[in-house]
């Protein structure tokens, strides 16, 4: 198949997939939605993030289910207040009070849905190995801590505010680290993740996104308890309320 044709076929397939699976969950879970339940209140969220926040099916919208509650809460605050940039999120959250946002965060933190197997990685063995080394050991020569040092040995996160890194789409991981690197994504000072991202090259980011998104999730996949790790750097978001 010629390249343009292949691209056309791929985008047609993607469009078809979107049409089939991209339907908002409000419609998918028909007959189960009851007014005044949290499930009904967050229908605007699950339309893209999937039922119970188990992730969208279009390969971008990240999973919300089971993430640390304060991590989700901080993201909701940041989107609402324009600190994290994504206009559809900012639009949806406009004017929602802090207490309700915390309730929404707690709802998704409490959802425990099995993780699907990861998509087979389309990446060279060298690239995956580079990602694995950075994620598990870091690079002391460049002052890079391992991802595992903060996000947990199983990359399942650290309560209350450091998220797990597995079960996320490759594009999403790459876009987020890129966002940290160029300042679009920020956290409460001292912004440890921004410091780390500054030191990552585009090759590092690509390798990390490829390797992390290729890892299967071993259940139970829950954040390590608060205070169970000595962080290699001070992180403002762990203390932010």
């Amino acid at each position, binding site marked *: 198949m010629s390249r343009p044709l292949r691209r056309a076929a791929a985008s047609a397939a993607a469009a078809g997939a*979107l*049409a089939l699976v*991209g*339907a*908002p*969950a*409000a*419609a998918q*879970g*028909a*007959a189960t*939605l009851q*007014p*005044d339940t949290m499930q*009904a*209140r*967050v*229908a*605007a*969220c*699950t*339309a*893209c993030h999937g039922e119970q926040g188990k992730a969208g099916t*279009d390969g971008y919208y990240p999973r919300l289910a089971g993430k640390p509650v304060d991590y989700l809460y901080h993201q909701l605050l940041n989107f*609402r*207040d*324009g*600190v994290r940039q994504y*206009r*559809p999120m*900012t*639009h*949806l*959250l*406009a*004017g*929602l*009070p802090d*207490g*309700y946002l915390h*309730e929404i965060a707690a709802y998704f933190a409490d959802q425990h849905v099995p993780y699907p197997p990861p998509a087979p990685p389309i990446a060279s063995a060298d690239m995956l190995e580079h990602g694995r080394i950075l994620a598990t050991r870091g690079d002391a020569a460049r002052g890079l801590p391992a991802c595992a040092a903060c996000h947990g040995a199983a990359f399942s996160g650290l309560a209350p505010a450091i998220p797990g890194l597995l079960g996320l789409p490759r594009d999403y991981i790459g876009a987020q680290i890129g966002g940290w690197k160029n300042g679009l994504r920020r956290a409460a000072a001292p912004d440890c993740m921004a410091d780390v991202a500054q030191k990552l090259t585009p090759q590092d980011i690509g390798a990390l996104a490829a390797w992390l998104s290729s890892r299967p999730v071993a259940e139970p996949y829950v954040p390590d308890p608060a205070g169970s790790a000595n962080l290699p750097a001070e992180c403002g978001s762990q203390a932010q309320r």
Partner: protein
Amino acid sequence: MKRIVKYCLLAVVLACLAAIAVLYWMGTRDDTSTGAAAAPAEAGRMVEQGRYLARLGNCMACHTTQGGQAYAGGTPIPTPFGTLYGPNITPDPQAGIGAWSADDFWQALHNGKSKDGSLLYPAFPYTEYTRITRADSDALFAFLRTVEPASQPSRPHELDFPYNQRSLLAFWRALYFSPGVRPPESGENQQWNRGRYLVEGLGHCAACHAPRNWLGATRAADGLAGGLIAGLDWYAPPLGGDPAAGLGDWSAQDIAMLLQTGMARHSTAGGPMAEVVLGSSQYLSDGDALAMGAYLKSLPAVPAAGPARAEAPSAALLDRGGKLYAQYCVQCHQEQGQGSGMAWPALAGNPTVTAPSPVNAIRMVLDGGFAPATAANPRPHGMPPFAPVLGDADVAALVSYIRSSWGNEAGGVMPFEVKRVRDASTLN
């Protein structure tokens, strides 16, 4: 003969110059009315009164960015003439209005002039705020003295030529600005007068609900006839007594309920009105909310500004829309479009759905959104955004269906109308 022509020409030129001078004088002179003087209030009470009035005027909407420091300014205000930015009105002496006196503040509110006498752009709605009494202006000023000073300088406006020439505002003002506090209408009761004071003044309802001419001016003669809001691309419904498009079927209590809770019988505030409820009208006292309702109910029906009623959609379009409704909407909005309490608004008889312009209904389908969070509805339900999953033809069929079912007779919608709304949305 030649001399006569010369004199005639000279006379014409002089007349023009005189007319310009008169217009300039009219556009820059000050009005002296102040309204009823209030009894001197104790300072703390005055600040509290000012805090309430600042909510009613929704000052933060233009003077506070999302997540930004209160009243530090910076909010972009898009207009057909360019983008204006709400200035810093904190008491910082350099960046804010810390060096202003209560007289300077009154001059801004009442006569639309800055401390140095320069003319203010009417994006600051002094065309409405001029109805505010001196007593209320002083209370607002007293409150603004108490907010935390911000050193962030005001962002300069980005206006196209010739609108960036401030002095030209004199002519605009001569034509469209009639300053003055209105004395109470003696034939009307206190509630009606209070309602008119709030609707015409602090509430500045006309800013969105009155049609604007090519120079961005609203005219009292047009009433609150509604129309598309320039720069925002939302439709503001008429507030007159027309039963189909206006508030004819609403009671004063219904109006008060919408203002205070964001929801009323058959209607939920969305878009810019949701922002108004969030930032302003939910804080109205019961008496003030009802007074606004009572005054609005006294307005005559004016023909709604906007497009002529669209033709009824074809059976094929309705069929397609009905299938989409069954797939995406019925679970919340129910079989007969009756919705469910505060959770899910009814679509049957919903004025947002049946408005002369389909723009708001299309935008709700595309962008989704939560009802405004208010004391009465602190944990609102959210409507999913359908822009990522439905194409223009599908949205057109769906909106045509809800506009033409369960007794709704608002007519069909074309895919190009959906495309226009999608293109204007800043979300996608």
